[in-house]
C-alpha cells in the first residue's frame, strides 16, 4: 500500500488521475484532528493507495465529490464530525448533524401536487432507526431523502488511544450482522500497520467466519424480501433457516452472531475433527432446504410478479454511486473483494452475476441465492481441510503508520483504515458496505411506487448501525 505525503491543490488532479487509471475510491476521512483528509483507492489487482491533502489554515480542502460521487457521504461526515469545509461541495447537506432545519437536509421538490411522507426513525416493526422523507405525487416517489446516524455512537472516537488489539472490540461491535467482516477488515488493516500478515491457517479461520456470516445474512435477506411482498410462508421458511445457521455459528464459535471470534494477529478458534464433519453435514442440510425453498419461490407467479423492473439501479449508476456487493453484482458489475483476496477458499474465486442483469429487486434477490451457493461451496472446501487449530500471524511487509484492510461482507466490500501511534490507535475509519450502498437505496426508490419501497429497501437489506457507527 502507498500513502502519499500531504499535498495541496494537486490533490484533485491526483485523485482524478487515479480514477482515470481505473482505481476505485473506497473511503475518505479526516485525519490528524482535522488537519488532513485522506482518500483510499484500490486497483482491480488489489493494490491500494491513500492520497492525502492538508487542510488550509481555515480548515478547508478541495472537494472530490464531483469527480467521485461515491465519496459525497464521506465528505458530509467529515464536515459534520471533524469540521472540514469542502470547497466545491455545494450544497453541503448535513449527514450526522441532526440539528439542521428540514430545508437544509432535504432536496427541494417543486411541481404539481407533490407532498412529503415522513417515515421513522421509529418504525412499525423490528427495524433499526432511520428517518425517510419521501417526496411523492399520488403513490409515485419523486425523491427520497434518508436521514441516518440515529445510531451514531462515536465508535471511531472511542477506539482512539486504545491499544490496537483492544480497539477491535469497538469496531466489531459496530453491528451484529457484519461483525465478522468488520472485525476481519480491521484485523487486516491492523496487521498491515504492524508489519504482519495472515498465514494460511489464520486466513482459513477468517474465511470460514466471513462465509458463515454470509450464509445467515443471505438467508435472512431472502426472508426479508418475502416479507416485503407479503409472502409469509417464504418468510417463515427462510427465517427458520437463518436461525439454524446462527445456531450453527453458536456451536462453532460460542456466539450466534460470531461476536468475539476474530482477533488481531492470530486466531484462537478451535474446531475439532468431529465438529468439522458435523458442521459440514448441517451445512449440506441447510443448502438442500434453501434450494427447496428457493424452488417454491421461483414457481410462485404472484411472488415473481412483484420483483421485476422494481427499484432499478443500473450498472452505470452503481459505478457512479460506488455501490458494492450483491447490489452491484445484480446490476452486472463483476466486482468482489474476494476476487483479489489471498485467503484459501477464495483463491480461485470468481464473482457471479445474474443472466441479463438489470439491477432490479429480482436480480438482487437472485444474486443472494447465487452467492449462497458459492458460500456453501467455499465452506465445503474450507471444512474439507480438517480440524481448525489456533494460528498466529507471521511477519509480513515493513510496519507503517497506516494500515488498510478490505473484506467482502455479506453486503459488499467493507474497508477499514487504521492510523497508529505506537501500539495505540490514533484514528480508525470503518466504511462498511451498508455505508457505501445507502445512497443507492434512495436512487432506487425514485420513480417507484411508495408501497413498493419496503420491498426495494429489503432487496438491499442494509444495516443502519454499521453505517452510523
Amino acid at each position: 500500500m502507498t500513502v502519499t505525503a500531504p499535498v495541496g491543490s494537486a490533490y484533485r488532479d491526483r485523485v482524478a488521475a487515479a480514477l482515470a487509471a481505473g482505481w476505485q475510491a473506497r473511503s475518505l476521512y479526516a485525519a490528524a484532528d482535522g488537519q488532513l483528509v485522506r482518500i483510499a483507492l484500490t486497483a482491480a489487482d488489489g493494490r491500494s493507495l491513500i492520497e492525502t491533502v492538508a487542510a488550509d489554515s481555515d480548515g478547508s480542502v478541495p472537494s472530490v465529490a464531483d469527480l467521485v460521487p461515491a465519496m459525497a457521504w464521506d465528505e458530509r461526515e467529515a464536515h459534520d464530525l471533524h469540521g472540514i469545509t469542502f470547497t466545491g461541495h455545494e450544497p453541503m447537506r448535513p449527514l450526522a448533524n441532526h440539528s439542521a432545519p428540514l430545508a437544509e437536509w432535504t432536496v427541494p421538490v417543486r411541481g404539481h401536487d407533490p407532498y412529503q411522507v415522513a417515515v421513522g426513525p421509529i418504525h412499525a416493526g423490528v427495524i433499526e432507526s432511520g428517518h425517510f422523507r419521501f417526496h411523492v405525487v399520488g403513490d409515485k416517489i419523486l425523491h427520497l431523502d434518508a436521514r441516518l446516524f440515529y445510531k451514531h455512537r462515536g465508535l471511531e472516537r472511542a477506539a482512539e488511544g486504545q491499544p490496537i488489539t483492544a480497539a477491535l472490540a469497538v469496531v466489531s461491535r459496530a453491528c451484529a450482522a457484519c461483525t465478522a467482516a468488520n472485525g476481519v477488515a480491521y484485523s487486516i488493516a491492523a496487521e498491515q500497520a504492524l508489519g504482519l500478515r495472515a498465514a494460511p491457517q489464520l486466513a482459513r479461520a477468517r474465511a470460514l467466519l466471513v462465509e458463515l456470516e454470509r450464509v445467515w445474512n443471505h438467508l435472512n435477506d431472502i426472508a426479508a424480501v418475502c416479507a416485503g411482498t407479503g409472502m409469509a410462508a417464504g418468510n417463515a421458511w427462510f427465517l427458520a433457516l437463518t436461525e439454524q445457521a446462527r445456531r450453527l455459528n453458536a456451536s462453532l464459535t460460542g456466539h450466534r452472531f460470531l461476536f468475539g471470534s476474530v482477533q488481531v494477529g492470530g486466531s484462537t478458534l478451535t474446531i475439532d475433527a468431529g465438529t468439522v464433519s458435523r458442521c459440514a453435514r448441517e451445512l449440506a442440510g441447510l443448502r438442500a432446504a434453501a434450494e427447496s425453498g428457493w424452488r417454491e419461490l421461483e414457481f410462485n407467479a404472484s411472488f415473481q410478479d412483484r420483483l421485476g423492473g422494481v427499484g432499478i439501479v443500473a450498472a452505470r449508476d452503481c459505478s457512479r454511486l460506488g455501490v458494492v456487493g450483491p447490489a452491484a453484482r445484480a446490476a452486472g458489475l463483476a466486482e468482489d473483494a474476494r476476487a483479489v483476496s489471498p485467503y484459501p477458499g477464495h483463491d480461485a474465486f470468481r464473482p457471479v452475476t445474474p443472466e441479463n442483469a438489470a439491477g432490479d429487486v429480482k436480480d438482487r434477490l437472485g444474486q443472494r441465492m447465487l452467492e449462497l451457493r458459492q458460500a456453501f461451496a467455499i465452506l465445503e472446501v474450507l471444512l474439507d481441510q480438517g480440524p481448525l487449530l489456533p494460528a498466529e500471524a507471521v511477519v509480513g511487509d515493513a510496519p507503517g503508520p497506516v494500515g488498510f484492510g478490505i473484506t467482502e461482507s455479506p453486503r459488499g466490500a467493507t474497508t477499514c483504515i487504521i492510523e497508529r501511534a505506537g501500539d495505540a490507535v490514533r484514528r480508525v475509519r470503518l466504511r462498511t458496505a451498508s455505508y457505501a450502498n445507502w445512497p443507492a437505496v434512495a436512487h432506487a426508490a425514485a420513480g417507484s411506487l411508495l408501497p413498493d419501497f419496503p420491498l426495494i429497501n429489503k432487496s438491499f437489506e442494509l444495516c443502519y448501525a454499521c453505517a452510523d457507527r
Partner: protein
Amino acid sequence: MTSTAIAGAAVQLVGGIVLAPLLPGLIQYWKARLQGRPGPSPLQPYRELRRLWRKSTVDVAGATAVYRLAPSLAAASLLGAIGLVPVVADSPDLGVGHDVIALIGLLAIARFALAAAAWDTGSGFSLMGASRDLTISVFTEVALLLAVTVAAIVTRTTSLTGMISGTAGGHVWSSPALPLGTAAFALVVIAETGRQPFDNPDTHLELTMIHEGPLLEYAGRDLAYLHWVSAARHWLLLVLAAVLFLPHPHGTWAQLALLPAELVAMCAALAVAETLMVKMRLLLAPRLLGIAAVVALLGIVARQAGIS
C-alpha cells in the same frame, strides 16, 4: 313468527355480532399453520377486543367530530348491514328490509366515515390508506354490484330473502349465469375483506397499508369498534357468498345446518389463497377487479341471452 324465522333471525344477529371475529381468527390460525407456526388461537380477535375495550381512547389534537364519530358510524352501518343480510330464506324483516342495494350503500357509508376521519386528522398514513381504499373501492363496488345483479336477475328480485330461495337447490347451477357470478363475487370477497392479493391484513409496514391506514390514529375502544367492523365485514361477505353464490338446499333447517360448514370452508380457502398469493402491485388491483366485473357482466349477458 314461525320457529324457523326465529332461529334464522337469531343466527343472523348472534352470528353477525358475536361470532364474526371468529372468522378472521380462523383465517389467521390456519395461515400460521400453513407457514409452519403454531400461531395464535382462533379466539385471538376476542382477546384483542377485550384488551382494547378496557383501554381509554386517545384523541388526535385538533380533530373534530368527524374523527370522533367515525368508529361509531362505521360500526352502526355494519350493524344495520348485519340486520339486513338474512341467513335463511324465511328470515323476518328486522326493520331494515332485505334490499341488497341498500347493503352496498351501508358498506359505502362505513368506508366514507373512515375516509372522512382520515382527512379530518390529516395524518399522512391515514390519508394514504384512505385514498388507496377509495380508489380501489371504485372498482370493488362496481364488481360487487354486478355480481349481486347476476343473482338478482337469476332470481328476479333484489330482496335477499327472495334471492336466497331463488338460488336454492340445484337447478340454478345448470345455467352459466350464477357460476360466473360466484367467480366474480369470490374476488369481491377478497378485496372487501382486505385480504391478499389486494391488501395484507398482517402488515404494519406503513407504506403498503390500505385498510389498516385509517385505523392508525385510533386507540382503545374506538379501535375495538373498528376491529369489529372489519370482522363484521368478513361475516357479511362470507354469508352472502354462502347463501347466494354457493349451492344451498331449500329447507330453512337444512340451510342453517349447512351455513357454518360453508363459512368455515371459505375461511380455510381464504387462508390457503393468502398463503399461496402475495400482495399484488397496487396499480394492478383495479385490473383484477375489472376482470371480476367483466365475468359478472358475462353472467348477466348469459342470463339475458337465455343461455342455459
